[in-house]
């Protein structure tokens, strides 16, 4: 036997996901594996001889690296002797500043870090994020890629992403050899949208480094680190090679951020039976020990794996928090597809969105999911308005600014034309007018003409192997009349020489102002402190193009009205014959002339009258002045009716059939969902009222129920009711009306 409800539940998007019970021995456990070690640290003569239960002789690569580089041994003893719960409480205590926590935590081993966050609920961890993130001002990062690796589309999309406020734009490739052209396209595009957007192209390390050397990229977050020795070796690196690589990028003025996340070791088959969070804590200490200014973590591409397990999403939040406790910039995940369920996806996002992180997503798809070459795209270009609304709902800065369509079209065209000019000047395969035009309005790469892939790849190789650098790009742009774009790219090169953006959590604000943990340190210490979305920024974030001025709606109601069809003929008297009184709201057919459903008041009244007449019952029409409430309008009508039966109708169309002997808020029939009422329904309302008036058996009028009506039209309802209420004259008795 199957329950129809369970059948429906089984069809829900959430049940397309996989949920498993923990299996600690193979690392399929989010937190708290029985094989996780207890925190311990022994230091002899300034050398770590035991860490988390492992003696120095047994250290693996990662233990060795952490013991030598990651721990601040001066505070280690104090840190390890402080109860984990006490440090957890410091994380949420507004009286303890971030710096005090950073200092103490710098002496903690991986197991100690895990033990601290294990004391905390998700809510407390969010409090921790608000205080511990490095940069005061939160930001966001975009993915810009497409299946055709189309340079004009990449440039246009990067320009739009920059305009929308993304502080970093990241691209990658489907075919590895395209990398130099993709890096070039998003560099040119992003600097068209806003000067100072950092860009990177995620490819193999050696190519990545060469792109950085050429000034085509300004940051790199491809430096993966792993929580077990075997995974590290499978990744073809060691903590030492990664540390060297980090220094290599910095030596060319390129910002770097390491990347790691829960689930990677289990996925690669080398978990050693440790929990995902414990292994991630090791990754983060390697990251800090190597001298990276920050990390991209939050499970990243493995997110579905911790999500299959109990507590997985909590664990992912915990890893963000541990990274921040280590003083690292955090680009906090939310990039890879995290759920089929919109509810689950959004709920997960809130853990980072509400407290704010250095980059709330480490890649928001500023393109359609179809074109996302990072393998997913948790959020994409079609969900941008949802993001804007969430910012506006909660007064939270998610790093994005609402934009106007015409502005977007303008920067997209300029971005596409700029890359066209660069391709032309460098002798790359031409970008045609048709390609530029397609890129301006494109939704996805399906809207773009195909290009000669062989020729593009050949040009990409020339760019990588030859002497061309950002200098030739700047010259090409300046000579083609793109002075602002040329100036922005030049300034990016100058910033490489200055190096202020190598400091933790650095991005460029307006006019290349560096915002980092040093220039814009997070000073959150409870209500009234830290980053607050207010002033001009709050105005900008609430200014959605879809938002309208409610005053204009009321003004539009007053236009083009013919008020002559309803004439007042004197005070309404109480009838003594069988009849139906139709009681109109104060504004009906006057200050308001149609219902919220768009029905002309004349047609509505005619339909009701027709219904009454069909039953052979006389009708009178009166206007009620002393109230705008539907029940009281109907009640007032009923007091005047010879039969005691009346129809009360508000201008927005809400209707009641009332009877004199009922309490004011009681009724015979109520039609509250006025947008669903059509003229036939009004006619039936008239008929039923007539039947009540003559004492005949009456079946209630069937009505359509649509529960989204209130959601869609509550503002219009409010405004119409406001207009009606403004017409109330408390002391004025009901008036008899005749129809002309």
């Amino acid at each position, binding site marked *: 036997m199957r329950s129809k409800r369970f059948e429906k539940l089984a069809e829900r998007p959430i049940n397309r996901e996989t949920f498993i019970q923990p299996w600690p021995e193979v690392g399929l456990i989010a937190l708290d594996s029985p094989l996780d070690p207890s925190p311990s640290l022994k230091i002899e003569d300034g050398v770590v001889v035991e860490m988390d239960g492992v003696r120095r002789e047994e250290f693996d690569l990662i233990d060795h690296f952490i013991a030598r580089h990651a721990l601040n041994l001066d505070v280690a003893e104090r840190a390890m002797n402080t109860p984990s719960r006490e440090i957890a409480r410091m994380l949420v205590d507004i009286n303890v500043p971030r710096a005090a926590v*950073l200092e103490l935590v710098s002496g903690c081993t991986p197991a100690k870090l895990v033990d601290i966050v294990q004391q905390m609920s998700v809510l407390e961890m969010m409090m921790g994020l608000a205080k511990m993130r490095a940069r005061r001002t939160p930001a966001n990062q975009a993915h810009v890629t497409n299946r055709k690796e189309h340079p004009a589309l990449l440039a246009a999309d990067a320009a739009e992403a920059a305009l929308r406020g993304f502080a970093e734009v990241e691209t990658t490739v489907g075919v590895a050899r395209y990398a130099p052209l993709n890096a070039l396209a998003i560099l040119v595009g992003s600097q068209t949208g806003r000067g100072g957007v950092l860009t990177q192209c995620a490819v193999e390390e050696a190519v990545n480094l060469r792109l950085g050397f050429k000034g085509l990229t300004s940051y790199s977050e491809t430096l993966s680190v792993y929580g077990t020795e075997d995974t590290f070796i499978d990744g073809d*690196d*060691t903590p030492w*090679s990664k540390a*060297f690589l980090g220094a290599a990028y910095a*030596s060319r003025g390129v910002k770097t951020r390491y990347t790691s996340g829960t689930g990677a070791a289990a996925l690669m088959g080398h978990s050693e039976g440790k929990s995902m969070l414990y292994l991630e804590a090791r990754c983060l200490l390697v990251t800090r020990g190597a001298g990276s200014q920050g990390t991209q973590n939050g499970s990243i591409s493995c997110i579905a794996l911790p999500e299959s397990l109990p507590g997985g999403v909590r664990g992912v939040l915990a890893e963000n928090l541990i990274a921040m406790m280590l003083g690292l910039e955090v680009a906090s995940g939310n990039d890879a597809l995290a759920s089929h369920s919109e509810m689950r996806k959004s709920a997960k996002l809130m853990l980072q969105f509400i407290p704010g992180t250095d980059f709330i997503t480490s890649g928001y798809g500023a393109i359609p999911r179809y074109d996302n070459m990072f393998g997913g795209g948790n959020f994409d270009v079609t969900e941008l308005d949802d993001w804007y609304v969430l910012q506006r709902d909660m007064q939270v800065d998610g790093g994005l600014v609402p934009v106007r369509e015409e502005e977007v079209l303008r920067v997209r065209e300029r971005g596409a034309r700029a890359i066209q000019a660069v391709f032309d000047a460098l002798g790359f395969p031409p970008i045609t007018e048709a390609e530029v035009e397609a890129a301006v309005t494109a939704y996805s790469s399906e809207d773009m003409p195909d290009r000669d892939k062989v020729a593009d790849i050949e040009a990409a190789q020339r760019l990588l192997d030859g002497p061309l650098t950002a200098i030739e790009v*700047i010259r090409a742009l300046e000579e083609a009349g793109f002075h602002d774009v040329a100036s922005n790219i030049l300034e990016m090169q100058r910033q490489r020489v200055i190096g202020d953006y*190598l400091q933790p959590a650095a991005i460029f604000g307006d006019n290349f102002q560096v915002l980092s943990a040093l220039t814009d340190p997070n000073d959150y210490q409870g209500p009234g402190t830290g980053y607050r979305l207010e002033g001009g920024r709050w105005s900008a974030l609430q200014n959605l193009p879809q938002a309208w001025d409610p005053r204009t709606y009321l003004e539009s109601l007053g236009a083009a009205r013919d008020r002559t069809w309803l004439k007042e003929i004197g005070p309404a008297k109480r009838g003594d014959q069988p009849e139906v009184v139709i009681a109109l709201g104060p504004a009906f057919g006057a200050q308001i002339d149609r219902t919220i459903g768009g029905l002309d008041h004349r047609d509505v009244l005619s339909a009701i009258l027709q219904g009454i007449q069909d039953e052979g019952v006389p009708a009178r029409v009166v206007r009620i002045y002393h109230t705008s409430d539907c029940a009281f309008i109907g009640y007032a009508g009923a007091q005047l009716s010879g039969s005691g039966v009346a129809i009360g109708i508000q201008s927005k169309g809400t209707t009641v059939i009332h009877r004199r002997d009922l309490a004011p808020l009681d009724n015979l029939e109520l039609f509250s969902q006025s947008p669903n009422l059509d003229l036939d329904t009004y006619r039936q309302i008239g008929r039923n009222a007539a039947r009540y008036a003559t004492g005949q058996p009456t079946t209630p009028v069937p009505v359509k129920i649509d529960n989204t009506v209130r959601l869609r039209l509550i503002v219009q309802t409010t405004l119409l009711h406001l207009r009606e209420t403004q017409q109330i004259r408390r002391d004025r008795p009901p008036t008899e009306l005749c129809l002309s």
Partner: protein
Amino acid sequence: MPSHTIHTASGRTLDELNLKALLADELTAEDFRISGETLRRQADTAEAAGYRQLAENLRRAAELTGISNQEVLDIYNALRPNRSTYNELIALADRLENDLAAPLTAALVREAAEVYQVRRILRNP
């Protein structure tokens, strides 16, 4: 960091890095390279703010400013697992220290050689 103190790796001042000079073909990619001196100052700044490991990284970076792109890539590859023998890494460290004025990087390589030997991720000679 006040801009008047900054020189590029090639010895130019920031003010010289302008569009006019670029269009006159007076600038090369070398002129847009950060200098070791600037990186060391950034390291001091990071250290003073409590970011000790970042400071160490920037000091290693300062040493690498004088090393060619190709050699940087070669050193990176030498440090990858199972790429080098112990003696090769020690020789690399010596060269970094003695010929390339990179003692901090040399120490990192030397340390790697010791650990790689214990963990058996050296290339067999």
